[in-house]
């Protein structure tokens, strides 16, 4: 079991920064997801922790020991690769036994440990097959078993579910979560799927273009995004972001709407905004339909989902926002509705710096 600490770790490929200087502390037993769009440097970060990629700067500390210049084999990490990276010429059993054999474990120990981990992952019937004969889900289980068998101090997983069918992902997702709870090993999990990150991680590291945008619990990154990128990237759809102008303690929004920020915000906006421009951000579920609501918008489309209805509203010309409402309510396209925003769920951003404004309280 181990803490992982990254101090100003960076990676350049030539002139190009894959990862800009990054600080991160991962507690023993924590499940941390690296989340971000393609090419943002998630894999590179993970490979630096594993030792498969050398750092261009900074230090990596594993369990109190500086491992920056140690080989992967000297770091006591296990990794699950995106496309499994199983040894194609070895059976599932031999694949799982590989790390133990490499360490020169005794035959009995190897047999026992492989059996244990195969039971844990429910793959005993597959042990004689070669990877080529297994479904991708089973290959994934074998890859997990190979990582688990050595009981390393931390697990690194690079989009381990990326190659699986959609319906199978959910099963494996809960399986990985179950394993993490059972083993309580520090886990760094790379994904570009925010649903996966939200469902599994204790903390999420949101990255974009090699820069860490925010580190926080799933609730924090969802409800209190630190900037516009996180606000848009997290959630599907992302946070509604409406441009407005801040004057006389009121935000003027498109379509002639005027919005008075809830308690505590006016002071914060006075202090925090760099100009008169402001962006109001709120999640679809913050919309509260009310006949006397402060705001008005036209219904553009009505999407019925099983348990709720998603409205697309138009506020002024082509300023569309999403609103999540009860499935019992009925709306017709084209009608104008009035609504309020849940005061505890409204956020404000400075359009120039793109950063969130801190609440006063």
């Amino acid at each position, binding site marked *: 079991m181990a803490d992982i600490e990254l101090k100003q770790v960076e990676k350049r490929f030539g002139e190009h920064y894959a990862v800009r200087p990054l600080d991160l502390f991962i507690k023993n037993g924590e499940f941390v997801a690296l989340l971000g769009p393609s090419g943002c440097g998630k894999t590179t970060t993970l490979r630096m922790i*594993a*030792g*498969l990629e050398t750092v261009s700067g900074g230090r990596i500390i594993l369990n109190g020991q500086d491992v920056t210049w140690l*080989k*992967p*084999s000297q770091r006591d*990490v*296990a*990794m699950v*690769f995106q*496309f499994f*990276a*199983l*040894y*194609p*010429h*070895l059976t599932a059993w031999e694949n799982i036994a*590989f*790390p133990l*054999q*490499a*360490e020169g474990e005794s035959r009995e120990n190897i047999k026992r440990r492989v059996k244990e981990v195969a039971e844990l992952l429910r793959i005993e019937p597959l042990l004689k097959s*070669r990877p*080529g004969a297994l479904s991708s889900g089973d290959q994934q289980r074998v890859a997990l078993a*190979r990582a688990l068998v*050595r009981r390393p101090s931390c697990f690194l997983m690079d989009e381990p579910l990326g190659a699986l069918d959609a319906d199978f992902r959910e099963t494996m997702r809960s399986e990985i979560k179950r394993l993490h709870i059972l083993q309580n090993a520090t886990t760094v999990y790379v994904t570009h799927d925010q649903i996966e990150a939200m469902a599994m991680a204790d903390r999420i590291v949101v990255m974009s273009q090699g820069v860490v945008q925010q580190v926080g619990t799933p609730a924090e990154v969802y409800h209190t995004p630190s900037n516009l990128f996180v606000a848009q990237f997290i959630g599907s759809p992302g946070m509604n972001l409406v441009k407005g102008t801040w004057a006389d303690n009121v935000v003027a929004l498109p379509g002639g709407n005027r919005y008075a920020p809830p308690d505590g915000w006016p002071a914060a906006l006075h202090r925090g905004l760099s100009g008169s421009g402001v962006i109001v951000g709120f999640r679809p579920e913050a919309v509260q339909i009310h006949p006397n609501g402060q705001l008005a918008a036209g219904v553009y489309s009505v999407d019925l989902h099983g348990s709720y209805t998603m409205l697309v509203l138009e506020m002024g010309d082509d300023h569309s926002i999403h609103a999540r409402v009860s499935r019992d309510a009925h709306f017709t396209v084209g009608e104008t509705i009035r609504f309020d925003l849940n005061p505890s769920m409204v956020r404000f951003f400075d359009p120039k710096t793109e950063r969130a404004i801190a609440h006063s309280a």
Partner: protein
Amino acid sequence: MQLTQTQTAPMHRRRSLTDVQIQVLFIAPTIILLVLWNIFPLFYSLYLSFTEFSVIKPDVPPAWIGLQNYNKLLNDPRIWQYFALTGRYVVTTVALQAIIGFGLALFLRERFKGSGLVTTLILIPIMMSPVVIGLFWKLIYNPAFGIFNYLIGYSVPNSGPDWLGEASRALWAIIIVDVWMWSPFVMLLCLSGLKAIPDYLYEAAAIDRASPWFQFWRITLPQVAPLLLIAILFRTIEAFKTFDLVMGLTGGGPGDSTELIAVYLYRAAFTRFTTGESSALAYIILVIVIAVSNLYVRSLNRIRGEQ
């Protein structure tokens, strides 16, 4: 009625016959050549192996003598001696080629400055004619002025061994030349096998804490094994038939110390002209080569099946 028929029939016929006929037209010349050049001699020599016949006496027709040729050959201790010599030669030369070729491939797999040039230089022996190579090496081995003895430490002319002139060394001299000539071939196949091993296998092995030695035995070797086996198969068949090198270097001598079976066969067929008997010997060699190749193909299929 008549008129319509003559108008539509040719069109119809042409179209329905195209596929098959064109296929036949393309295949026929090849088949005819194959039969004339390969199949016919194959069966004709099989027939001759059961006869008493010599090509230099064409007016004496082949006389059927049943299994007498085979009987005579298989009871001739000299033939067994030459087969044993050939076996020793094949095993030694192919084993050395496999080890050296694989080693060279491991070395050249690392990209370094000039590795492309080195690869090309190493491949040159394959491109040369065996006759030329024989003549070259005769000079290289020459005890008076050859460079070989000089390189292995005999700096005074005529102080080193006469490689081609001593019965105990002549076979080794041929093996050295064969290894020099054909290790690059093994290297070439192994190199393409090595380059096809994906990097992620080594990354996974590094994470799994495998030592370089363990990685070699558990990843590199099994991954290259199919190609290495193919190289060994080719070289075994070729080594069995080694003839031109021997003729160029020793002519089978001194004595019969380098009389490989192919050389003996050549003498039987084209100096003594015992055509019937040499056909029988050729068939014995063929059966052995087929049997040996089958063993290889079987182990190759087993390895393939495992992947």
